[in-house]
């Protein structure tokens, strides 16, 4: 689905990503783990086209999308929930969702999509339905996370990039959201690239884990192995 080869991104002299190689299998959840500043967010921003890599290639379903403009990604089926969630606070819930749905315009009509219409989104997240005409800045953290996930799904993506969905949320809500992600992948074959600080909950739903440290890939293992390898967990994942 998504293959990254020898990817390097630098901000001036600082190398945020240092020749990263990884692949994200279709219909699987790949978790990217690592301490703060390890390069997790830079990886997502480079993959989604917000940042131009210094070298290396990114291919999505076989086509090379290295350096393609970020505006084109959603039409290629890649939806990105950025760091800080990316809610447009001054617009209402429904307006945010309508912007997401707009991304589906160029998607093939038969593409498998769990959420096709706004009503599907309101069914998936009833709280959004109740507050559809409220201004987004009045939503709680959890509600905002649901909103941006629903917005991303409305674009009928095949690949979903999630940047630390658990940030600032109560454990109960984190579990609820991670559970949702797992069912989405299981039921509709969605592929997810999940960047997370909270390694424990990420590994609970991921199939493969990639650990970054100082911009380099340190370990690529199945989530199963990572969950049980205490030494690895201590040194990189802090639990």
């Amino acid at each position, binding site marked *: 689905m998504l293959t990254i080869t020898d990817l390097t991104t630098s901000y001036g002299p600082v190398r945020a990503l240092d020749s990263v190689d990884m692949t994200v299998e279709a219909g699987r959840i790949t978790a990217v783990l690592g301490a703060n500043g390890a390069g997790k967010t830079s990886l997502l921003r480079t993959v989604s086209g917000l940042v131009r890599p210094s070298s290396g290639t990114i291919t999505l379903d076989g086509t090379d999308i290295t350096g393609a403009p970020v*505006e084109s990604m*959603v039409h290629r089926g890649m939806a990105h929930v950025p760091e800080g969630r990316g809610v*447009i*606070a*001054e617009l209402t819930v429904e*307006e945010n969702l309508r*912007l*997401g749905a707009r*991304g589906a315009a160029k998607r093939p009509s038969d593409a498998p999509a769990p959420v096709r219409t706004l009503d599907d989104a309101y069914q998936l997240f009833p709280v959004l339905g109740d507050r559809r005409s409220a201004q987004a800045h009045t939503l709680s953290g959890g509600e905002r996370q649901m909103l941006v996930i629903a917005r991303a799904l409305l674009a009928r993506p095949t690949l979903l990039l999630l940047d630390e969905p658990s940030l600032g949320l109560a454990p109960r809500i984190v579990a609820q959201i991670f559970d949702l992600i797992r069912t989405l992948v299981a039921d509709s074959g969605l592929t997810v690239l999940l960047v997370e600080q909270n390694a424990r909950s990420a590994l609970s739903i991921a199939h493969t884990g990639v650990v970054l440290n100082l911009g380099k890939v340190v370990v690529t293992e199945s989530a199963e192995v990572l969950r049980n390898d205490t030494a690895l967990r201590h040194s990189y994942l802090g639990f």
Partner: protein
Amino acid sequence: MTDDIQKLVNVLLNGLTQGIVIAAFALALVLIFRSTRIINFAQGSQAMFTTYLALTLLNRDFPYWAAFAVALAAGFVIGAVLERVVIRPLEGGMELNIVIATLGLYVAIQALAAILFGSDYQSFPSPFGMTGFQVGDLNLALTPTSIFVLCTVGVVGVGLTLLFQKTQLGLTMRAAAFDGEVSRILGIKVSHLLTFGWALAGLVGSVAGILVATGTFIYPSYMETLIAFGFIAAVIGGLDSPVGAVVGGVLLGLVNSLVSGYVASGLVTLAAFALLIVVLLLKPGGLFSSTTARRV
């Protein structure tokens, strides 16, 4: 007694007609400020230039509405071209540079118009009557032309509100204005919207330029005072709210007319400045500004 009432009514009507045109111009300024956070000081010169294009057509016996349409189209195109050629390369640089570039355009376009069209007074015909209505023995300072002006600005205001509230394009423009990066992630071509924003502002500015000119005379610097008044109205309104621009414009028009009618014609610009300071002291972001949610 009726003479006093008639004067008050006429001063207010005069203020309303002047104010509604200031409002139209303030709308153009707000359109650009919402998306790029800068004030386009060249807006007045652009509007003046397209009005002169219309007048050249009128002098060649084109019908008024053809000239009107050409001016609006020219305003749209000039707005887009200026954004692409001058503003886009300065994007991301110091805000000061963009403001200075618009000031340069303001001076250059005005001088260019004087060279091309001459600096003499030229009268701009009106397709409607110029004499006021009579109600009983009251002569109202309301002519078919001023009604045409009021309706046109009304149409522009309603049109813009519908565009922003009801259409997909309007929604994407607002999104781009509030958060450019997230909009791009959602697949919105923000750069195209910026150009469209300047083009739309150019069109609305041209409407204001023609409405100011219709039924009176134009000369290359006829829009100069309107730039200051248009800005004051936009700031009073909140600089990023179209409704605020219209209210600010009408309020300023009334104040100017009342001061000119009952105090002194020389004090008009001072009164406008005082109104601006009072509003900024009371509500720093302007009356209808939503920027209070975010620091300007």
